[in-house]
């Protein structure tokens, strides 16, 4: 199985609101920590090393300035 790159979340607006609401009353540092933990929890849930590698590479390349 390869990385899903099409939308896959039901009721995306409600999901996003829940994700933002989960940071309520957290300090900036706690919010960073929470999001990092969330990444690790979700990676564990996915488990498939090939998919994880693809996701990591995508996130990294999308963040680096375009090389050309």
């Amino acid at each position, binding site marked *: 199985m390869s990385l899903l790159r*099409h939308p896959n979340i039901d009721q995306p607006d409600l999901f996003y609101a829940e994700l933002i609401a989960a940071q309520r009353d957290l300090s900036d540092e706690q919010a960073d920590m929470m999001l990092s933990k969330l990444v690790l929890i979700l990676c564990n849930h996915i488990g498939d090393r090939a998919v994880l590698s693809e996701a990591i590479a995508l996130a990294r390349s999308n963040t680096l300035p375009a090389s050309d």
Partner: protein
Amino acid sequence: MLQTYTYPEYAYRASAEQRSGKLKCHPVVIIGAGPIGLTQALDLASRGVPVVVLDDNCTVSIGSRAVCYAKRTLEVWDRLGLAEEFVAKGVQWEIGKVFFRDQLTYTFNLLPEAEHKMPAMINYQQYHIEERLVQACEQANGVDLRWKHKVLALEQSSDCATLTVETPDGLFKLQAQWVIAADGAHSDTRRLIGADFSGQFFQDRFLIADVVLKEGSLGLPPGFGSRAERWFWFDPPFHRGQSVLLHKQADGVWRIDFQLGWDADPNEEKKPERVIPRIQAMLGPQVEFELEWVSVYQFACRRIDHFRHGRVLFAGDAAHQVSPFGARGANTGVQDTDNLGWKLKAVIEGQAPLALLDTYHEERAWAADDNIGHSTRATDFITPKSRAALRLRNAVLELARSEPLARPLVNSGRLSTPTPYVHSSLNTPDSALFAGSMCPGTACVDAPIERAGQPGWLLEQLGRGFVLLSFGPAAPVQVGGHVAQVLQVGRDVIDSKGLLQQRYDGQPGTLYLIRPDQHVAARWRQFDPEQVQAALGRALKLHTGA
């Protein structure tokens, strides 16, 4: 300012009842001659209920306010004979573009389903809409529109409300069986009643500028093309750290909303020496323009505790306020009037119990909460409240450039669509399976038809009384004074393009009971008069025992 529009001034006229000093009781008094009050007046008059409309001013809405009108609103105005003109004079658009910094991150298309009479969205200045609604009220039978009438006090008994009104001729009283308060977000009526109006205030300010570009301007920046599109920028180079929204309106007027942040001083920001450089930064130094209008606003998302307080019913911004992202203010207000008109008529005429009016609250508070949810989520995306929220928002925008997975999360406003009353107590739940979206509580979707050899539209056939839209033989059904007339596909109307059958999953024998506000009340796979009778009674809160 405002070279493209001259405000009308409407004459004050002393009313016969004020001159005579005789207390008169009207069936309905509407407070507020804005888009909602005027639409409600025309709707009730078209249903045979005479109305008096009071307004404390004598002109239309001043400045740049509501801009975008959605399909459902246009369908309501079409029933009143006005939408074709609005569509012809307004600006239609379907494409929205979202930018992050200096790059296009996402393009959406409203993708309106083909073959509807009304387009997905038009932009048209609120003053134009109001001026035309006033004209229609002046021509309508049963609308008594009174300018310079300010309501100072309101008292209620069990069967009527008494209003103390101030005019240039002094104070007088008039009575109404029912009062509809459509007097806006700062509703005096709401204050007089003491209704609770709570919700969330947003700590942000926005600058509205209406701009006219000098004819023949060259080197216009992208977005100001001849084709109308909605453009939204997050953190653009010409307005760092904030958002900007651009809409094209009629008469060559561009509406620009600049986010300013909470620390901005509204009085300073309104000054031309502050506004003009902001617009120049966006347009480029070579473009000449004139300012038509400037104002600074902040907003809240909140709603009234109950849409009915005794004899007083609240509609529009008097009942609910939303952030501007998504064009949900005026649009949802017009849908309030659509919901209220037929119910009020039935109650005034003694054809339905008071309980029917409480479903106005049930259905429209549900819709208001849905609208408030959408507009709050859009506001939270546009103005993140914490560093982590800002970082997530920017991550969504960066990803969305190349990754479809992130695009549903980009939220620059979810544009107004009617909220289906899926849990309404007026619905009769389905007892069979249907494909498509026309479940009970949903506003009817339009489709092309032919009637008496002439091309037309389904929605033109609906909207007066209850209708049985049938894909097979059926007979009119009566409950009390209400008759649901049959509109039989193939007999009364021809499904010229097969789309009616498709959109309503109209297998032979299928039957829809449709309310006077063009919403589905019930549907079946075969005609059974007893079931229809029970559903009609239910849709009117009449307990027939069936």
